[in-house]
């Protein structure tokens, strides 16, 4: 069974097709890149897999669970790092994680474990409003990992991170991959794409290439020229 399976997924907004019969599958521990220019449909695809948006047709399964038929069951298996950090600026880092942990039914010790893992234990009692973009991104990753999801969805995860932050993120993703977490990464960053094991290139909502990241980056570069 694949960690994520998409079969002929279509989605339109106001008559404009954003995704056209997109199909792919992601295995356990695989880092799968979603490449393509702005407006290609990468974020829409991630939102459909996350159960935030309904597809017009086609099927999406997460760990064998249909996201439309059993959305709550599918959402228990998914963690998402979106373009926005999904944090409450008025709350501290610890309070933010404690809230999400409470909803997932995860214990307090996991909150501290993750704060340590993302290097924010010393900032646990600081309000998120005073955090840099990089710190918010680290906390956002901790939030997405609270319930040990089997599938992690990442939308431009390295945006706002400096070189050290990007290296840290790469190590984290590799470690998660070793633990068997499947990842779907929408990215523009060539370095991030190269760290993936496979992927697809989307253009105007269609899959125009699939395979190893080196070949995909050549397709993306070719389209730019």
């Amino acid at each position, binding site marked *: 069974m694949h960690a994520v399976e998409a079969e002929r997924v279509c989605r339109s907004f106001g008559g404009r097709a954003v995704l056209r019969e997109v199909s792919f599958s992601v295995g356990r521990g695989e880092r799968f890149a979603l490449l393509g220019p702005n407006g290609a449909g990468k974020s829409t695809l991630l939102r459909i897999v*996350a159960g935030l948006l309904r597809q017009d047709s086609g099927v999406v399964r997460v760990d064998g669970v249909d996201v439309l038929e059993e959305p709550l069951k599918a959402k228990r298996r998914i963690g*998402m790092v*979106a373009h926005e950090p*999904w944090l*409450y600026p*008025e709350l501290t880092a610890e*309070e933010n994680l404690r809230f*999400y942990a409470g909803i*997932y039914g995860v214990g307090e010790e996991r909150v501290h474990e993750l704060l340590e893992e993302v290097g924010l234990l010393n900032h646990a009692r600081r309000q998120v409003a005073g955090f840099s973009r990089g710190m918010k991104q680290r906390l956002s990753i901790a939030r997405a990992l609270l319930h040990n999801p089997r599938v992690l969805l990442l939308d431009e995860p390295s945006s706002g991170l400096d070189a050290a932050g990007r290296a840290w993120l790469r190590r984290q993703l590799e470690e998660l991959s070793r633990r068997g977490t499947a990842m779907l990464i929408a990215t523009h960053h060539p370095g991030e794409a190269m760290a993936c094991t496979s992927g697809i290139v989307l253009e105007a909502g269609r899959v125009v290439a699939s395979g190893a990241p080196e070949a995909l980056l050549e397709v993306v570069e070719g389209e730019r020229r």
Partner: protein
Amino acid sequence: MKGQAVLWIARKDLLVEFRSRHTLSFMLLFSTLSVVFFARIAGTYVLTAPGIAPGYLWLVFLFTGMLGTGRAFLREKEGGTLDALRSMPVSAAEILAGKAVYNFLLLFGVQCVAFPVFLVFMELPVRGSLLLAFGVLTLSNLSFVVISSSVATLVLGARAREVLLPVLLMPLLFPLLVLSVSALNRVLTGGAGLMDIAGEVRLLVAYTGVSSVIALLTSEAALQE
């Protein structure tokens, strides 16, 4: 529906409000000023026709409530955290219920301040039980937050949502206002007891119940993107 998620959402909203003090402080200020203005303008009429006083009180609650209760969802929408809530394994009904609990506590706080201020400034010749009047007001506020929280989800996607919310709310709140004003009037100025206003109370309970069921049934569609 899991009560745990509902309580976590309400608790988080209270904590955010406690830190920012954006909504409650304005609601308290607005309600107190409105009561004082009404007392100054209509004070002489209240002495000759005390029956109009509960109507004034409800006008204050109506505008204060509309000012504050829509904020709970709007804040999530503007901060991007509504997606975070929807990405978790919680139903739309649980999210709505969490917001309704928070809104109720907010409005109850306003009620605790505005009701005594109203009694002092209106110089109303009270004949009945103040506790019973407070109970009627609490029950009415419960109904109010169920309806306003539900309608707030329906207008989330609209462009002019701040204007649309009161326009949609007014007709829905009309039966509640009529029942509540009648019961308050009979208690405060007529000296009626609980048995005397049993008809209004029963209808208020039924209205709250029916509104809650409709709100929960429509929540999934209302919170869909």
